[in-house]
């Protein structure tokens, strides 16, 4: 009987351990309270729910190699993951997961995110910050005939009807363009306050070293003779700063396509780069939307790699902005470079888009600022986050997203639990009616099976997904199979006239092979599913695998022990077995 006692003890211990593993406990996690994430302790059952059950966002990012191949993608990705992780930590998400998948992908899981678009922007932003001096040599004007010639070959007839060449004139021949604005001394559109080229936007320590007194330069650019009949020269209107131009929104789309062409790129002024402004400028009186185009020196005088801190700020005059601090080395370099470029114009370029451009009034040291134009404070906050976390070493693009709303997740849990409850009730009824007392043993084993499965999932810190929940429901049906196999064998042995105890022993012995083989083959399938599945399907595979282990144990150990305990009494062993 010591064997029986030992078995009962093992079962009792397992039940206790399972209950303990599933008991609601206090855990420290980040929770959302009144719209902000705070670290707090909460009471909950320690079962991790997948994104499809609790709501949230799943992102698969991959290296974007469309703009040039990446030399060592795996290594670059490792660095990118660190950056992404830092950014997410600052975004404040409860239990995020950032994981490398293969050599060129990152999986990002953000449970409970309610603004997926913003989260994605923060994760994906390259955040490559450059400071570049604008061109003052009219390089673009000199290249325009060349560019026009190539463009003419590419798309014949770029000259719109009625576009008369107006050499030497700055007023555009077409009505409704920026003409008036571009004449020397003309006022800029009222909307210029929200414009990316905002005045007074790059300021040094003292707060007064840079101011774009641009009128002095304007006269040069306006006085230049320019051909205006090519695809480029027609679209490009000189702006108020050296190296700055304006393009209407429809022309912007057209020019972008042209600029991507390799032959156009080859014909660009050497040592210069073209960058678009980050925002558009509306001219409400004419109903035209413009975008700024900048010609910049190719070599940045400073990059974001020296940045140590960035903070969002709200200023009543300048609107929202981000102030940043450079480290000591960066500050020294910045001081040198800006010192050499006093009275030149500097553009702050983020991810190849010009945020601001202004004149350098005096050398700038370790700190500066980026005005957000008309951007919201949240945009300033997000920019500060990505600048602080550093630039992504490689561009990432979204390969896959899944977003599940929290309400759908809650519905799924409710429905899944309902299905589980009904399945269990039906199965219990079938077993009790068909096998009577032995059926009750099987039901006991089945309940223990469910408990063990959940406890193991909690113990392995596995994630319960919606397909996983389906797998659990299904596995309850399959788990009784072992018991059915055993009971049918016991019945057969009883039919052959064997005494009850012998029949039970033989029944278990004969059913063993079939149970082992079916369990192993199903387990192998589950392992393959885990290996080749993603996200929710992996959750399913884990549930399936855990279920097999639990069912194997409950059938061969628990049901067996119930029989042993029942048949321990000699009088019961003499009576016919209720099976």
């Amino acid at each position: 009987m010591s064997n029986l006692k030992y078995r009962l003890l093992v079962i009792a211990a397992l039940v206790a351990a399972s209950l303990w593993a599933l008991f609601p406990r206090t855990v420290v996690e980040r929770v959302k309270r009144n719209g902000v994430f705070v670290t707090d302790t909460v009471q909950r059952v320690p079962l991790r729910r997948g994104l499809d059950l609790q709501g949230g966002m799943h992102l698969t990012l991959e290296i974007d190699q469309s703009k040039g191949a990446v030399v060592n993608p795996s290594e670059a990705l490792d660095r990118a993951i660190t950056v992404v992780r830092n950014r997410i930590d600052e975004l404040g998400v409860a239990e995020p997961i950032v994981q490398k998948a293969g050599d060129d992908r990152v999986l990002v899981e953000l449970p409970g995110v309610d603004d997926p678009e913003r989260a994605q922007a923060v994760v994906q932003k390259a955040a490559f910050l450059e400071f570049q001096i604008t061109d003052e040599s009219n390089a673009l004007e000199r290249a325009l005939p060349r560019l026009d010639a190539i463009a003419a070959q590419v798309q014949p007839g770029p000259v719109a009807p009625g576009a008369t060449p107006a050499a030497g004139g700055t007023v555009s021949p077409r009505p409704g363009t920026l003409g008036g604005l571009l004449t020397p001394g003309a006022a800029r559109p009222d909307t210029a306050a929200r414009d990316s080229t905002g005045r007074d936007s790059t300021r040094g320590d003292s707060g007064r070293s840079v101011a774009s007194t641009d009128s002095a330069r304007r006269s040069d650019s306006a006085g230049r003779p320019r051909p205006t009949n090519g695809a480029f020269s027609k679209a490009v209107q000189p702006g108020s700063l050296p190296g700055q131009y304006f393009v209407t929104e429809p022309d912007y789309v057209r020019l972008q396509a042209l600029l991507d062409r390799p032959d156009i790129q080859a014909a660009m002024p050497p040592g210069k780069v073209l960058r678009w402004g980050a925002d558009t400028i509306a001219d409400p009186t004419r109903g035209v939307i413009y975008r700024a185009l900048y010609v910049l020196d190719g070599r940045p005088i400073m990059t974001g790699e020296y940045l140590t801190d960035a903070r969002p700020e709200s200023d009543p005059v300048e609107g929202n902005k981000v102030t940043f601090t450079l480290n000591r080395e960066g500050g020294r370099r910045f001081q040198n470079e800006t010192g050499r470029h006093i009275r030149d114009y500097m553009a702050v370029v983020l991810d190849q888009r010009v945020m601001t451009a202004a004149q350098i009034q005096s050398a700038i040291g370790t700190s500066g600022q980026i005005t957000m134009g008309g951007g919201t404070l949240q945009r300033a906050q997000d920019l500060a986050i990505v600048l602080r976390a550093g630039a992504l070493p490689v561009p990432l693009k979204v390969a896959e997203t899944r977003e599940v709303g929290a309400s759908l997740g809650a519905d799924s849990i409710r429905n899944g639990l309902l299905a589980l409850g009904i399945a269990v009730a039906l199965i219990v009824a079938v077993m009790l009616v068909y096998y009577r007392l032995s059926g009750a043993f099987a039901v006991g084993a089945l309940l223990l099976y469910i408990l063990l499965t959940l406890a193991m999932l909690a113990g392995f810190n596995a994630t319960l997904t919606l397909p996983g929940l389906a797998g659990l429901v299904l596995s309850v049906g399959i788990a009784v199979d072992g018991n059915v196999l055993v009971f049918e064998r016991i019945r057969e042995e009883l039919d052959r006239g064997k005494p009850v105890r012998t029949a039970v022993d033989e029944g278990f012995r004969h059913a063993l092979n079939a149970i082992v083989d079916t369990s192993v083959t199903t387990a192998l399938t589950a392992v393959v599913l885990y290996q080749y599945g993603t996200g929710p399907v992996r959750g399913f595979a884990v549930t399936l695998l855990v279920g097999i282990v639990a069912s194997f144990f409950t059938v061969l150990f628990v049901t067996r022990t119930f029989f042993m305990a029942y048949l321990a009494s000699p009088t019961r062993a003499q009576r016919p077995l209720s099976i």
Partner: protein
Amino acid sequence: MLRIFHDTRFDFIRWWRVAAALTVAFILAGLASFAVQGGVNYSVEFTGGTLQQVEFRQPPRVDDVRATLDRAGIEGAEIQQFGSPTEFSIRARGGDEGAGAEAASRRIQRALQKRYGASEVRVVRTEAVGPRVGAELRRGAIVAILISSLITLVYLAIRFEWRFGLAAVLSSAHDVLVTLAFLKLMHLEVSLTVVAGILTLLGYSLNDTIIIFDRVREDLKQKRQEPLRATLNRAINETLPRSVLTHATVLAATVALLLFAGEVLRPFAWVMTFGIFVATFSSVYVAGPLLLLIERRFPRALPEPRAARAAALRTDAPVGAR
């Protein structure tokens, strides 16, 4: 005690030609559907594109939703009611670029919120998959099924012998074909979860086959002088009560899933419910006859006279001679 199908002596194998005709007809119907309507109905996970599950406060008109999406430049979107009359699923192809799918999903969301008002419509689920990921997943799913078949074959070859393993794996292949035909005829979408369902079904069907083969293995060890066909028939009859009971309990689980687990899991529940019937059918009428065919082609060396066995296989010998 309550007993069903106890001590039966059905000659299951006798009907194998009828069964084969039935299953071939079903598969052909599926193939014909493939030929007429194009290939497998893959979900966005496999094809790339976007899927959005949208909840409206008031039931909208479907053509109005469609018109709204057309105006937003989302072409050929598939709009389906999803469960309740206020919920819809919207499927659309992404653009050509990698980020196309993701951008399209945002466009759909904006267009709907603009048309119906932000508080009237809520996107509860979004999936956007680039074409490259889709292609990889498709390959992964096929590789998963092939590898799991191969591993099973090896395992059964070790635990039983290669003839049993081959019969079991070929019968699994049959299950996949029949299930694909079923999915096609039911217009169900093949998603990752459905692939998981197919693999589970394979495992389940294999279980059934193994349990019958386990009986055959046991009976063969007793070296009765009877043809394999008789042994097989007896094994099926002996395991019949177990089969009926287990299928009943699993059916209870899958029907519960089908009815209560919600729209997202419904295709999976369909596959599994169908799978129970496939498993029952194929373990008796596909795996069994296949084993007999393999055995006839490659007879095993047994102590009993081979000629007698071969003769017994050809003639319709009486069954269940205990």
